[in-house]
């Protein structure tokens, strides 16, 4: 028997179990076991092209069948929640946008809605800022679902799906760059409103992009919806019914694939979602194929919402009027890049000492938020993104906790994959669509 410390084996009532977590010489492990029933414990990830990021899974296999599966996380833990406690409320946006890096606008909006709820200024956010927030979130839902499709397709070997998904996402990323200056990590949505208004000509560009996206979505649907190989890999795979979803706190497309039309945009609306017209996509198959169809449909619905946002955009402020909260600087693009507008610099440097003090206090110290705690949830592409935020009345968050949907939903991986094949496990993880930046934070 092998005495390798990293590839040992031990007897159980079901037969001998070989552990090859951490590697080992397969021949020496396999040599003495011919003709016996054997289970092998295999380590998969965290550096693996099919584990949807730095997800590590420990699988006990009986041949090709997964007997037990467990996931290990924390490989992308960056301590963002701790860091937030040492920055002002406004600076926090720069951190949270990096959590679930595929849905930055949801992280930012959830954070800002929570700060605004603590401040009690939810009603004072300008209409234009809210409409732009909704528009950015829905564009983000499209780009996030496209990545899910792309990476999910790649993991199942459908490389054309990856190329198409990333190609379409590029259209949306160009819009982000136009609007916020960045393709990701925007920190564009701020407590009280937005960092700045839409640039000139943005509306036209968005409309053009929408038309392009709408046209190209047909490619994606044509490629996969009736594709027999795609269906064979996803139909009936990753089954989790409503009971399982509720017990495990699963939300988002996975919950909606059980036929439950639970979408926070409809059931507990925020940002005025109750005034937009859209449908909640559901399927009743409880499987990976159903989740794929839901994501396709949600992208179409998001396009509808973005169009409605464009229609109701009216000129106006994008930052709260309350000067004790609103970021004082007006950003503008100058000859040396983006910075404070010349008018603002003229005022604080040449005209008003009070303005200068005000600017300095707000930018260095920030505003105070009354003590208390709130929980604010938004419907991110992956489900309920909740923020538990505590203030001690100071200028920095006392505690911010992100209830990331990927973190919670990943708990369902064993329930969905045990008893299936190793290849199905890949489809399962892809259908949950966890983003490890959000799981580990």
């Amino acid at each position, binding site marked *: 028997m092998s005495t390798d410390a990293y590839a040992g084996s031990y007897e159980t009532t079901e037969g001998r179990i070989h552990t090859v977590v951490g590697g080992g010489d397969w021949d020496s492990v396999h040599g003495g076991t011919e003709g016996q029933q054997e289970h092998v414990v295999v380590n998969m990830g965290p550096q693996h092209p099919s584990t949807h990021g730095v997800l590590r899974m420990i699988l006990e296999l009986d041949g090709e069948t997964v007997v037990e599966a467990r996931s290990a*996380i*924390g490989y992308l*833990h960056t*301590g963002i*929640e*701790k*860091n937030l*406690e*040492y*920055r002002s409320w406004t600076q926090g946006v720069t951190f949270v946008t990096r959590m679930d890096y595929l849905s930055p606008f949801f992280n930012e909006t959830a954070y800002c809605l929570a700060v605004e*709820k*603590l401040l*009690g200024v939810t009603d004072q956010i300008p209409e234009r800022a809210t409409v732009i927030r909704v528009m950015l979130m829905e564009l983000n839902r499209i780009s996030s679902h496209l990545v899910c499709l792309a990476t999910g397709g790649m993991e199942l070997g459908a490389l054309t799906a990856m190329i198409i998904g990333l190609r379409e996402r590029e259209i949306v990323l160009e819009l982000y760059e136009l609007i916020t200056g960045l393709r990701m990590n925007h920190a564009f949505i701020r407590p009280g409103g937005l960092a700045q208004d839409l640039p000139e000509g943005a509306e036209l560009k968005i409309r053009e992009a929408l038309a392009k996206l709408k046209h190209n979505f047909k490619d994606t649907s044509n490629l996969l919806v009736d594709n027999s190989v795609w269906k064979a890999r996803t139909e009936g795979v990753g089954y989790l019914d409503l009971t399982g979803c*509720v*017990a*495990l*706190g*699963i*939300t988002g497309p996975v919950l909606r694939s059980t036929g*439950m039309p*639970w979408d926070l945009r409809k*059931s*507990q609306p925020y940002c005025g979602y109750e005034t937009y017209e859209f449908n909640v996509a559901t399927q009743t198959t409880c499987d990976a194929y159903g989740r794929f169809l839901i994501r396709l449909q949600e992208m179409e619905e998001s396009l509808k919402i973005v169009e409605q946002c464009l229609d109701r955009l009216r000129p106006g402020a994008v930052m709260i009027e309350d000067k004790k909260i609103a970021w004082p600087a007006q950003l503008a693009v100058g000859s040396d890049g983006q910075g404070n507008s010349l008018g603002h610099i003229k005022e604080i440097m040449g005209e008003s000492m009070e303005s200068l003090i005000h600017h300095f206090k707000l930018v*260095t*110290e*920030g505003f105070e938020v009354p*003590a*208390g*705690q*709130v*929980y604010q*949830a938004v419907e991110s592409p992956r489900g*309920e993104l*909740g923020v*538990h935020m*505590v203030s*001690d*009345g*100071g*200028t*920095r968050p*006392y*505690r911010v*906790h992100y*209830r990331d949907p990927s*973190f*919670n939903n*990943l*708990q369902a991986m064993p329930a969905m994959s045990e008893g299936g094949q190793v290849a199905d496990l890949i489809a399962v993880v892809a259908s949950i669509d966890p983003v490890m930046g959000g799981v*580990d*934070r």
Partner: protein
Amino acid sequence: MTESHEAALETPLGVTEGRQITVKHGAFRTTGSGDTSGFGGLVTPVILPGATSRPFGSWFDAAADKLEKALRARSVTVKKAIEYYTVDRGEFTIVVRREHLLDVAQILRDDADLRFEVCTSVSGVHWPTDEGRELHADIELLSMTHNRRLRVEVAVPDSDPHMPSLTSVWPATDWHERETYDFFGIIFDGHPALTRIQMPDDWPGHPQRKDYPLGGIPVEYKGATVPAPSERRSY
């Protein structure tokens, strides 16, 4: 799902007492610097929303009544199970003693009029000066049936950081409790495998506690050293 999840606080509300949790002194974290601005002498009490008296408004009263009735039916003294209720910013919090947390949780999930079938999150908060209840666990519940949200708060002392695990009621709390253990050191008794989840297995300490420094690497710049964020002056 017709009822609004946001508390429509039309009925007259009870009064919420403040609960002083700590006092902050000074500003800029400087002491003995000969500061004559007066900021060093600032005394700021930190007062959190505490117990709210009835009526609470919205659906909160009926839910509290139902919970108390069900507790009595289990022959649990209400005062021994529930410390107080808080209504703040339209959110309803029940502060529960750990001895009866499982009773309360079971009722909240199973009673048809309450039916909080989903536990969305468990989060910790560390208040080092809140003597005897330094570590708070905030359990966020969601009722899809009635479209409501509710927070259950449990406070445990740092010297005995035990509370029962809710995994038997809501399996979803598994990883959330592991994370709260990892970050705050709250021990959830009865959890199937209470191990670290974000930090490495051999990590010492619980990083989200307030006495755990942020650390980081001091940045040297032209001979001057920029300290780690937790060491910098703050407001």
